[in-house]
């Protein structure tokens, strides 16, 4: 009897110990993952001397919130200001994400619901084009944009980014999961394909459309290489390109560079925490296609 109680207690304690251990590991990972961001945030409030002093301290001596205002008001001339770069980045991200949702939904509808010649060939081609390394088309795209004078315009990023195989594939799979009865009823009532697309498919697919929008918004917001290639004028820079140059010119003011980092990181982080469910679904989907 006694041994049994002892045994039960041991199991209970070891169970608790296991849960505690797991929390400890989770906490450890959280610290490692977030320390760089927290330290940078605290760094934005320090003087530049503090920021490069040895040994580095965690908290600022005086909390210099005006670093944020200083960075926001920095003017590199010829339209190079943070509000302008923030506008460029948001504009590009919103426009490309919107176009992606529209065009990919159109393509997805055709693949999921309509019968047409060449459907299988085009679909297979589309899937295999996803395995094409982006680097092959980098040089010709740059030359092409230069030759048709789209360098330093928003178009250079919007045109190639407005529709992609991945988005069509994602929405095709989602549309296929919508039951077809409603559409049949609409067809009998004489609705056109456009009516069905607009009034049945789109309203029923809001979660998938939102997922795609968020993924593409983030992709364009974080886009570095193409923005770097196509946008060389100061007033056309996105936050990413601006931050790179800002860091080179303001090596002596790392605190201001870190504020720039926050301007760049906060919008996507806020968007992420608002819509994390949709983010996760999008990422999981790209895993399930394998």
């Amino acid at each position, binding site marked *: 009897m006694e041994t049994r109680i002892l045994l039960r207690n041991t199991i209970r304690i070891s169970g608790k110990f296991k849960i505690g251990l*797991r*929390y400890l590991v*989770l906490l450890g*990972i*959280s610290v490692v*993952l*977030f320390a*760089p961001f927290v*330290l940078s945030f605290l760094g934005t409030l320090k003087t530049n001397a503090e920021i490069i*002093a*040895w040994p580095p301290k965690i908290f600022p001596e005086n909390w210099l919130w005006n670093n944020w205002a200083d960075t926001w008001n920095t003017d590199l001339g010829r339209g190079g200001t943070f509000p302008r770069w923030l506008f460029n980045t948001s504009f590009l991200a919103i426009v490309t994400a919107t176009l992606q949702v529209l065009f*990919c939904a*159109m393509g997805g509808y*055709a*693949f999921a619901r*309509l*019968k*047409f010649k060449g459907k299988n060939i*085009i679909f297979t*081609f589309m899937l295999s084009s996803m395995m*094409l*390394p*982006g*680097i*092959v*088309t980098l*040089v*010709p795209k*740059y*030359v*092409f944009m230069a030759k048709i004078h789209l360098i330093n315009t928003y178009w250079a990023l919007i*045109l*190639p980014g407005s*529709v992609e195989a991945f988005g069509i594939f994602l929405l095709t799979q989602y549309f296929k999961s919508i039951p077809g009865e409603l559409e049949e009823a609409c067809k009998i009532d004489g609705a056109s*394909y456009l009516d069905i*697309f607009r009034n049945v498919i789109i309203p029923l697919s809001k979660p998938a459309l939102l997922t795609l929008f968020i993924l593409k918004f983030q992709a364009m*917001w974080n886009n*570095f290489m193409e923005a*770097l*290639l196509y946008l060389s004028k100061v007033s056309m820079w996105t936050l*990413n390109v601006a*931050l*790179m140059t800002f*860091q080179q010119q303001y090596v002596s003011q790392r605190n201001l*560079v870190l504020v*720039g*980092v926050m301007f*760049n*990181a906060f919008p*996507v*982080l806020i968007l992420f*925490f608002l819509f994390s469910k949709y*983010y*996760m679904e999008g*990422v*999981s989907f*790209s*895993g*399930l296609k*394998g």
Partner: protein
Amino acid sequence: MKKQSSLSEMKKREEIAAYVFLSPYLLATLVFTIGMLLFALYISLHDWNLFQSPEFAGVKNYIKAFRSEDFRRGFLNIAWYTLIVVFTQTFVAVFMAVILFKPIPGKQFFRTFFYAPSVTSSVVISMIFIWLYLKTGYINLLFGKVAEIFGGEWQNVEWLNKPDGLFQLLARGVGGDIEYGKWYLHGPSVTWMAIMVQAVYTTSPTFMIMFLAALVNIPSSLYESASIDGASSWKQFWKITMPMLRPITLLVVVLGTMGCIQMFDYVKLMTAGGPLGTTLVPVYQIYTETLGINGPIRAGYGAAMAFILAVVIFALTYIQRKFIEEKTEQY
């Protein structure tokens, strides 16, 4: 009779509608995928500085790429990078996913929390790590504290400016050395490894989400019957979880390989290929040649290097696919 014609008419209408709906994608693919592929081939066979008209060069650009020591060096660097980063990030991602998968209060919160840093851009990450890696930065502080605990002393390292290779350091540890000219024997440099750490830091959570999605799809009946048979959770992990995760592991490895080989951002932002060429990578070379950053614009040479790189990526991902598919058939 009439009904039949209207049926074929309906079919035709459906077909036209389909192509109208598909037209944005078809147009974009025609121009930006097929068109650009052909254009890339054309450019790679020409010498072109973008100002004068292109001059036919045959396969000269390809030969030049193979002969270039810098290009070979870039390949070796990216090979080390891909090998180490893909392995480590896959391992870390599985580890985090398995810990987060077990029912535990606050699981959802941690899942969101872990993924958050990955949504920020490579520029954000690079700017932060440039600062952390300073000689007076927190990474050195951390090493110093750890050394203190073990009673040693830590010499602060300028992480982003340390060309010494891994094997070089090991050789020095046993009293020998490898001279700097023999770059192919150095192994990855300290700077290069610092960038690998940063890469694993940003990519692992993304792949963790993929593994989590795959874990949810493993039928719990498998674990239940294994538990009845008295299999330990360690054994269950190796006999059930790992085999069931094979397909997703393949995808993570393939996606990871594609991403790693085309790495550009960190090199551009943090090292520009230095110190002593130990972080030079092919895509960075393609970029500098095409834009003429270290000399005249050589778009043809850039395009040829891109093609070679693409063929290598294709071959690698094909081998990985075959290898893992073969292993999977046993189950």
